[in-house]
C-alpha cells in the first residue's frame, strides 16, 4: 500500500483522519505518586481522534521514545501528545521522536503534568488527576488543529556588525573574527576603548586599564577580518536577520588597519582627561557607506549618571564632585604628589556618598527635572568607590576618608576583600536609611562642606561630618541610543536598559531576530561581566551564522489570503518595520503579507484582524478556543 504522505502529516486533514497518540509519563513517581495515571490514560483513550493512549515510567527514556516512534509507524499516528514534565525540558526531545519516525516535528503537543500538576497538588490527588485529564484533553484538542510547519530558513551574510567600541565591543569583535566571521566595528567616538579608558588601575588585577585596552585594540586593529569605523553613526537600518542593511556615516579610518601602536597609546592617554578626551578628528572627512550583515551585536554601553544641579550640593561648590571626576583627577595627578589638594585647596578629608542616581525611591528622591528616577542598583559603584578610597589611602596615608552608604554591595569575585582592606585601614563607615539620604551643605567654616545624616551604625545618632571634598558615587545610566532603538524596534526594560528575551534562557538575544546585546547596554555590569557577555554574544552569533543560513522556529504570523479583506489593521498595529505589509495580488486586491524573517510572532496583529485572517502559526486562536472547550469537558 502506498502511504499518503500528506494525510500522514495531517495536511488538510479533517477530524476523521487525524490520529492522535497520547503518552502519559509516571516520571518515576514524580507524577504517578499524586496523579492516578491509569485514570488519565483511560480518559485520554476516549478523547476525540485519539487512537492510542499509553503510559511509561519515563517517556523521555529510550524505551519511552521508542514506544512513540513505533506507534507512529504502526498506528499511522499523525499527532502526538505527551503528558509529562514541563515543555522546557523535553519538547525538543519529543519533536525529535516525530522527526525520526518520519512525521513533521511540529505536530507534537505537551501537557505539563509535573511542574503544574503533581508537584503543586500533593494534598489533593483526586483534584490532581482531574486536572491532569483536563490538561491532556486541552493538549489533544490543540494537537488536532496543529499543522505541519517548517523552520524558517534564511540566507545569512557571514558578517556581524558590532556597535560600540568599548571593552565589550572590542572583545566581541575579536572573538567573532577568531570564529572566522567578518566583523564591522562601529564606534561613535573618534577613538576606541569606551569608559574603561578613563580608568587607571582596575580590580581585580591592579593592571592599568589602558594597558588592557591597548593589548585588545592592537589585536582587534591587526585582525584581517575586522573593519573598524570610528566617529561612526548608524543613520538607517533595514533588512532582517541574515541580511541587515545599515547605512553608516563615519569620519574615522575606513577599512584600513592603520591603528599604529603610537596612535593607540596617544588615544588612550588622551582619555584620562575626560569621557570625550582631547582627540580631534584629523580631517578624514565624512563618508556614508552601507554595511550588510547577518547579525548585529549592540555593545553601546552606559553613561555616567550626572547629578542635577543642587543634588547633594552638586555644582554649588567646587569641592562637590562625582566619582568619575575624582578618578580622572587621580589619573591626571590632580591631587598632587605632596599633601593632597584640588585646585589649590588642601584636601584633608573626603566623604563618599553612595547610591547617587541609583536605587532611588519614589517620594524620597527628587526628580529634579529628570523624566524618571533610577530604581535599579548600578552594582559596580560600591566596589569602585572603595577601590578609589583604597588608592587614596595608599597615596595619601594622612587623608581621612568617610563612606556614607545605604548598603555596601561588593558582590563580585574578590570585591569583598577590597571592602575589608579599606575598613581595616581606617575608612570610617556610616549608614543611612533608604528613606533618609544624607544632606550636603556648604558652610563658611573650614572644612567648608558638611554631610549630615542619621547614622544607623550608631543607632540613628544624628551626625554632622565636616569634609573638604564630597565625592558623589554616581551610578550608570544606559547610553542614549534612541535612534537605534527606533530604527531596530528594540524593547527596553522599565529601567531603560535594553531587554533580553530571557535573563537565563536567552541572555544575549533580543526579541528582534538577529540582534544580540552585550555589556552595559543591557544592565550595569563590571568589566569582567561585560567581557563574558561579549564572548557569549560572539559565540551565539557564530553558532547562528556558522552554517551560512539561519533557521528560526516557524512560530510567526501567517495570512489566510482568502479571508483577508486588506483593511491594513494588522499593518498599523505591528510594531516591527515591514513585518507585515499590504501587497497587490494577481486579482488586483490588496492583501496582507508577512515577512517571516522579520515577524517576531507576538500576535499583536491577530487581535485586530476583523476576519481572523492573520494568525500566529502554532498559536492560532482556534487552537486556544479548542483548548478552553476541552478544559471544560468532564471525562
Amino acid at each position, binding site marked *: 500500500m502506498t502511504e499518503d504522505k500528506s494525510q500522514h502529516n495531517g495536511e488538510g486533514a479533517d477530524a476523521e483522519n487525524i490520529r492522535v497518540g497520547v503518552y502519559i509519563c509516571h516520571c518515576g513517581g514524580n507524577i504517578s505518586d499524586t496523579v492516578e495515571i491509569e485514570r488519565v490514560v483511560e480518559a485520554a483513550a476516549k478523547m476525540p481522534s485519539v487512537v492510542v493512549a499509553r503510559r511509561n515510567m519515563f517517556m523521555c527514556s529510550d524505551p519511552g521514545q521508542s514506544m512513540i516512534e513505533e506507534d507512529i509507524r504502526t498506528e499511522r499516528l499523525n499527532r502526538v501528545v505527551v503528558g509529562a514534565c514541563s515543555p522546557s525540558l523535553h519538547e525538543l526531545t519529543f519533536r525529535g521522536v516525530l522527526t525520526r519516525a518520519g512525521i513533521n516535528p511540529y505536530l507534537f503537543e505537551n501537557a505539563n503534568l509535573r*511542574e503544574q500538576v503533581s508537584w503543586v497538588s500533593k494534598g489533593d490527588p483526586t483534584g490532581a488527576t482531574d486536572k491532569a485529564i483536563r490538561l491532556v484533553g486541552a493538549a489533544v484538542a490543540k494537537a488536532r488543529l496543529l499543522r505541519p510547519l517548517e523552520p524558517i530558513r534564511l540566507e545569512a551574510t557571514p558578517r556581524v556588525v558590532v556597535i560600540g567600541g568599548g571593552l565589550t565591543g572590542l572583545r566581541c569583535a575579536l572573538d567573532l573574527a577568531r570564529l572566522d566571521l567578518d566583523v564591522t566595528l562601529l564606534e561613535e567616538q573618534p577613538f576606541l576603548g569606551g569608559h574603561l579608558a578613563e580608568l587607571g588601575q582596575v580590580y581585580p588585577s591592579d593592571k592599568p586599564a589602558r594597558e588592557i585596552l591597548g593589548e585588545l585594540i592592537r589585536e582587534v586593529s591587526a585582525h584581517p577580518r575586522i573593519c573598524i569605523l570610528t566617529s561612526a553613526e548608524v543613520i538607517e537600518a533595514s533588512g532582517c536577520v541574515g541580511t541587515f542593511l545599515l547605512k553608516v556615516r563615519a569620519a574615522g579610518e575606513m577599512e584600513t588597519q592603520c591603528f599604529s601602536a603610537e596612535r593607540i597609546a596617544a588615544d588612550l592617554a588622551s582619555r584620562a582627561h575626560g569621557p570625550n578626551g582631547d582627540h580631534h578628528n584629523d580631517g578624514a572627512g565624512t563618508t556614508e557607506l552601507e554595511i550588510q550583515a547577518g547579525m548585529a551585536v549592540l555593545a553601546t554601553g552606559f553613561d555616567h549618571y550626572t547629578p542635577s544641579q543642587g543634588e547633594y550640593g552638586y555644582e554649588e561648590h567646587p569641592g562637590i564632585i562625582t566619582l568619575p571626576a575624582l578618578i580622572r583627577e587621580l589619573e591626571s595627578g590632580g591631587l598632587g604628589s605632596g599633601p593632597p589638594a584640588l585646585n589649590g585647596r588642601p584636601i584633608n578629608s573626603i566623604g563618599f556618598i553612595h547610591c547617587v542616581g541609583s536605587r532611588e525611591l519614589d517620594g524620597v528622591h527628587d526628580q529634579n527635572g529628570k523624566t524618571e528616577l533610577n530604581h535599579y542598583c548600578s552594582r559596580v559603584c560600591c566596589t569602585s568607590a572603595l577601590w578609589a578610597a583604597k588608592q587614596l589611602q595608599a597615596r595619601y596615608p594622612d587623608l581621612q576618608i568617610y563612606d556614607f552608604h545605604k548598603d555596601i554591595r561588593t558582590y563580585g569575585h574578590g570585591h569583598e576583600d577590597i571592602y575589608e582592606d579599606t575598613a581595616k585601614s581606617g575608612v570610617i563607615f556610616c549608614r543611612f536609611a533608604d528613606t533618609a539620604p544624607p544632606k550636603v551643605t556648604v558652610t563658611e567654616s573650614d572644612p567648608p562642606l558638611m554631610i549630615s545624616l542619621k547614622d544607623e551604625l550608631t543607632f540613628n545618632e544624628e551626625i554632622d561630618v565636616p569634609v573638604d571634598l564630597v565625592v558623589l558615587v554616581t551610578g550608570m545610566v544606559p547610553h542614549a541610543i534612541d535612534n537605534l532603538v527606533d530604527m531596530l524596534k528594540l524593547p527596553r526594560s522599565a529601567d531603560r536598559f535594553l531587554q533580553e528575551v530571557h535573563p537565563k534562557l536567552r541572555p544575549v538575544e533580543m526579541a528582534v531576530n538577529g540582534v544580540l546585546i552585550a555589556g552595559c547596554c543591557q544592565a550595569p555590569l563590571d568589566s569582567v561581566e561585560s567581557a563574558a557577555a561579549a564572548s557569549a554574544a560572539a559565540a551565539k552569533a557564530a553558532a547562528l551564522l556558522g552554517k551560512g543560513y539561519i533557521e528560526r522556529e516557524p512560530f510567526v504570523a501567517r495570512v489566510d489570503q482568502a479571508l483577508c479583506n486588506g483593511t491594513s489593521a494588522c499593518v498599523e498595529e505591528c510594531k516591527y518595520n515591514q513585518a507585515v505589509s499590504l501587497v497587490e495580488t494577481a486579482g488586483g486586491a490588496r492583501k496582507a503579507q508577512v515577512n517571516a524573517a522579520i515577524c*517576531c510572532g507576538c500576535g499583536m496583529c491577530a487581535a485586530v484582524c476583523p476576519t481572523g485572517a492573520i494568525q500566529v502559526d502554532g498559536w492560532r*486562536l482556534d487552537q486556544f478556543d479548542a483548548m478552553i472547550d476541552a478544559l*471544560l469537558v*468532564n471525562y
Partner: protein
Amino acid sequence: MTAGNSGRKPMILILATEACAYPGADNTGQIHAEYSTNAYVVRVPAPVQFNEEFYLRCFDKGIDGILVMTCGHECPYAGAYDRTAQRIGRVHELMKERGLDTRRLRICAICTVCSKAYLKEVKAMVELVSQEQAAAVGGS
C-alpha cells in the same frame, strides 16, 4: 463525557507568557508549593494576540476567572504589554455592560522565579470565584 461547569469546582484559566509567567508557574512546581487544582495554565507567546471577544467567550463557555500573567514591562515584544493592558481595560468595560464582575479578569506581571506572586494571584482568584459561586448557589 459532558461539557460545561455545572456542579464542579469553579475553573480558573491562567494565560501565562512563555518567556516569564509560564517558567514562573514551573518554578512554583519546582519548589513544591501547593495551590488549588482548579487553576489551569495555558502557555502563550504574548496575550496581546487575544482580542476582547476571546475573553468574553471564555466566560460564556464557563471559565470563572482569568488571570493574564504577563512579563509586565519586561515583555520581549515591543509595545505588547501596554497594548494588552489597554485591551484588558476595554474588556472590563464590556464585562460591566454584561453585568460581570470585572475582578474575574485580572492582568499581572509574573517573572520566571515569582512563585510568591504567582501563588498570591492564584489564591486571590480562587477565593474570589469560590465566593461568587457560593453566593450564586445561595441565591438560587
